[in-house]
């Protein structure tokens, strides 16, 4: 693979830059010409001028301009840009042809663009792939306007994130109302397919641009700047998150999805304390979440609850958290002294016991508590004081359906969990966790009470999950054993790993991606677990630190050694001392 790559580079030699530039020019030309001969494809693809999925290839082609003024990392950035430009162009052409019903429906512009993208890719692959020597993040010049500019950049980055999120979410919901006027191929309507194509192209564009920015060091610069102004960053982030329902103009579906992402993300951040900070692999995390959900469901006043009580939610959230935390302690105390990978199995076992128990406490196979497989349903809308979360509102000329109430509640939960994470990771406890994660024996030798601290991480993770679960029960209005299976735990873990272990943005991004992708790509719905499985394997293989790594993790995984011990050191080396 690498050998073939380097011999290809030798063959192309110094021509690579010229080829890449030529391809990029061709691609730019192609991407402003019409691509489709029928109007079924979104984004005015039948007209000249940039629009729809053509924006992506256009932007990525412009990256080639970096080759004219060599800056550090430009070759690698262009390699990434050309790869993704080709992927997006190829994919879009395929979707146009497929949903149109044949190659005839693809207009000339698309072919020009595809040819350009191919040349661009061939040139790009000939560029030097070696990493430039890492340099410290750049900062703005020392001028009076630097501070406001830094604030602007910080706030702007959250605004961009919000825009990207809203746009991605909107790709489908904007089209939901469109008539299914086009041919039906099998069970999948063309609309769904073109939406999938558009969303996939959008996703690839995001990844491509993120890679370009990373390779140019821009992301590192930006994150250094945002770190300098955490308050601005947080405030901007909060404003963006709070403002989100106002961008949706009454679209309850989008708000519901956003709220679900919020729950998922809160659970992922909680799990990240356990896995990312303390290095404990918890494969039954969803069970703690389920404990919270069941507690809330049972005392919600639902008619299907076997306990005919109603406790105000402000108490329930603590009750659920406490019960889940208690389970965490009961489970963690005896098992946390064990070898790390045994903990994974124990938590997995606990998750299964929870699910089986919830299934069996139906008054038939066991005591009556949970209604068995049917679960507790008809959970009433939340009320806090006189405010009912089931009411729609109209505010500042915007329709705010009741889902917005739950969305904001989820944001509050998420902020609480994130704050807990951030405060902890900066604290002495957090540093001790990291020390334990990296080398438990060494940590113990420096006087850290490893067992107690691991228990703290584990129980805290359980507590946060329980709290999030109580909220979720009211959002989805039902608690059933099926919602708390091993696969849910695995998905949460996947979110943490995909995003980046040990960081808050990592867990947020991971949760968003993992929730949104199957929601958006209908053709993937059946295959989503299959894809997750592959993604887990690929990430561990090629980017174990995740999309947004903590700097420390990155070093841990990419110890660019001179090859010592490269042969057959088994995993777990150094873990088991006699």
């Amino acid at each position, binding site marked *: 693979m690498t050998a073939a790559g380097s011999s290809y580079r030798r063959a192309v030699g110094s021509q690579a830059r010229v080829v890449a530039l030529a391809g990029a020019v061709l691609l730019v030309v192609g991407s402003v010409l019409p691509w489709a001969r029928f109007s079924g494809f979104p984004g005015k693809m039948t007209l000249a001028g940039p629009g729809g999925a053509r924006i992506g290839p256009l932007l990525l082609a412009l990256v080639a301009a970096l080759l004219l003024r060599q800056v550090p990392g430009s070759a690698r950035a262009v390699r990434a840009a050309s790869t993704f430009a080709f992927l997006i162009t190829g994919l879009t052409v395929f979707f146009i042809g497929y949903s149109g019903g044949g190659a005839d429906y693809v207009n000339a512009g698309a072919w020009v663009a595809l040819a350009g993208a191919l040349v661009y890719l061939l040139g790009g692959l000939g560029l030097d792939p070696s990493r430039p020597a890492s340099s410290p993040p750049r900062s703005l010049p020392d001028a009076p306007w630097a501070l406001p500019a830094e604030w602007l950049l910080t706030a702007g980055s959250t605004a961009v994130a919000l825009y990207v999120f809203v746009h991605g979410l909107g790709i489908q919901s904007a089209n939901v109302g469109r008539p299914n006027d086009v041919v039906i191929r099998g069970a999948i309507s063309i609309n769904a397919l073109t939406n999938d194509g558009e969303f996939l192209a959008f996703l690839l564009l995001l990844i491509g641009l993120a890679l370009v920015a990373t390779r140019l060091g821009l992301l590192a610069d930006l994150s250094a700047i945002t770190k300098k102004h955490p308050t601005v960053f947080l405030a901007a982030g909060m404003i963006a998150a709070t403002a989100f329902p106002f961008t949706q103009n009454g679209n309850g579906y989008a708000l519901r999805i956003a709220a679900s992402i919020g729950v998922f993300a809160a659970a992922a951040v909680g799990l990240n304390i356990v*896995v990312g900070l303390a*290095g404990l*692999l918890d*494969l039954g995390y969803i069970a703690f979440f389920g404990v919270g959900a069941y507690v809330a469901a049972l005392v919600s006043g639902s008619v299907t609850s076997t306990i005919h009580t109603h406790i105000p939610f402000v108490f329930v959230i603590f009750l659920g958290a406490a019960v889940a935390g208690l389970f965490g302690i009961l*489970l963690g105390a*005896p*098992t946390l002294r*064990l*070898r*790390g*990978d*045994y903990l*994974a*199995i*124990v938590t*997995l*076992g*606990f998750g*299964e*016991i929870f699910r*089986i*128990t919830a299934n*069996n406490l139906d008054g038939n*196979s*066991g*005591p009556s508590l949970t209604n068995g497989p049917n679960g507790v349903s008809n959970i009433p809308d939340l009320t806090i004081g006189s405010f009912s979360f089931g009411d729609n509102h109209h505010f500042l000329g915007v329709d705010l359906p009741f889902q917005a109430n739950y969305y904001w509640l989820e944001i509050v939960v998420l902020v609480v969990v994130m704050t807990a994470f951030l405060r902890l990771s900066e604290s002495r406890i957090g540093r001790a966790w990291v020390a334990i994660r990296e080398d438990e024996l060494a940590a113990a030798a420096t006087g850290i009470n490893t067992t107690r601290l691991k228990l703290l991480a584990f129980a805290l993770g359980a507590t946060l999950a329980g709290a999030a679960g109580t909220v979720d029960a009211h959002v989805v209005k039902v608690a059933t054993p099926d919602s708390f299976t091993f*696969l849910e735990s*695995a998905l949460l*873990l996947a979110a943490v*790993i995909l995003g980046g*272990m040990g960081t808050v943005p990592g867990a947020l991004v991971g949760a968003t991606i993992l929730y949104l992708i199957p929601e958006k790509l209908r053709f993937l719905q*059946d*295959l989503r*677990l*299959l894809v*997750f*499985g*592959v*993604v*887990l*394997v690929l990430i*561990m*293989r090629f980017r*174990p630190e995740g999309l947004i790594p903590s700097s420390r993790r990155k070093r*841990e*995984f990419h110890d660019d050694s001179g090859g010592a*011990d*490269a*042969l*057959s*050191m*088994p*995993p*777990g*080396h*150094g*873990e*088991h*001392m*006699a």
Partner: protein
Amino acid sequence: MQTFLQQLVNGVVLGATYGLVALGYTMVYGIVQLINFAHGEIYMLGGFGALFTYTVLLPGGTPVVLALVLMLLGGMVVSITAALLMERFAYRPLRGAPRLAPLITALGVSIFLQELVRNFYPAKSPRPFPQLVDPSHQFSLGASVEISAPRLLTVVVAVIGMVALSTFVRRSRTGRAMQATAQDPDTARLMGIDTDRIIVTAFVLGAALAAVSGLASGLQFGTVDPRMGFLTGVKAFTAAVLGGIGNISGAVLGGFTLGIVEVMATQYAPDPFSGGAWKDAWAFVVLILVLVFRPSGLLGERVAARA
């Protein structure tokens, strides 16, 4: 008393399945300290490979014994191929990576294989498995304790497999090399042992035995299901730990012990918690109790003391 004896027999049958699968966990863990989560799926693939051989490859009217042998071979081919691929492309590139990485990869491989079969193996789930060995044929073990033909076959085949493996590991040159690699991989290489090959051997042997178990459970239960590997896998891992991970005799002993405990708990647990609905819960309770009270297992671990 008679119920007790009958349940004991049932436990032994169940334990034979666990033991066969546990051997795969224990060999791989003993050598590379990896909990190969996906080993349960290897067992599942063995069942599906056998089913595929029967429904697609074998002409109708193949004599039963020949059909069984060919189904076993078919199952083994599928299991072993999957095990080889995953070792080569998922696990081997991760040697030397932080400990969590291969564990997560294992999880990914497990989900992937399950979903692969669920989505792409035709026909409804669970899939009917040919009843080649008549389950209504009962052998009496005296005192009105009985065992059906497929269950008896399971125990017999399991015992043969276990004895064969243990003889291989203790007596053969490769078996010795496996032991050496488990005890000290670096020094094993200094002896001229190709440890990469030994790791592959462990995966292959484990897969072959798991395929035996997959076929046996197909015959016993009359179905195979893409999800069947998950529970059996976790329980077999429990059995391996119960016996002492890395310890081959331990895996066998652990398998039988777990099988018997599970059956007995299901039968004799205090009232609302007995019966089939709680069966799996009991297995996991045993798992947690074992790990808490005897993490090094009944016979002791055989895991390298790595400095």
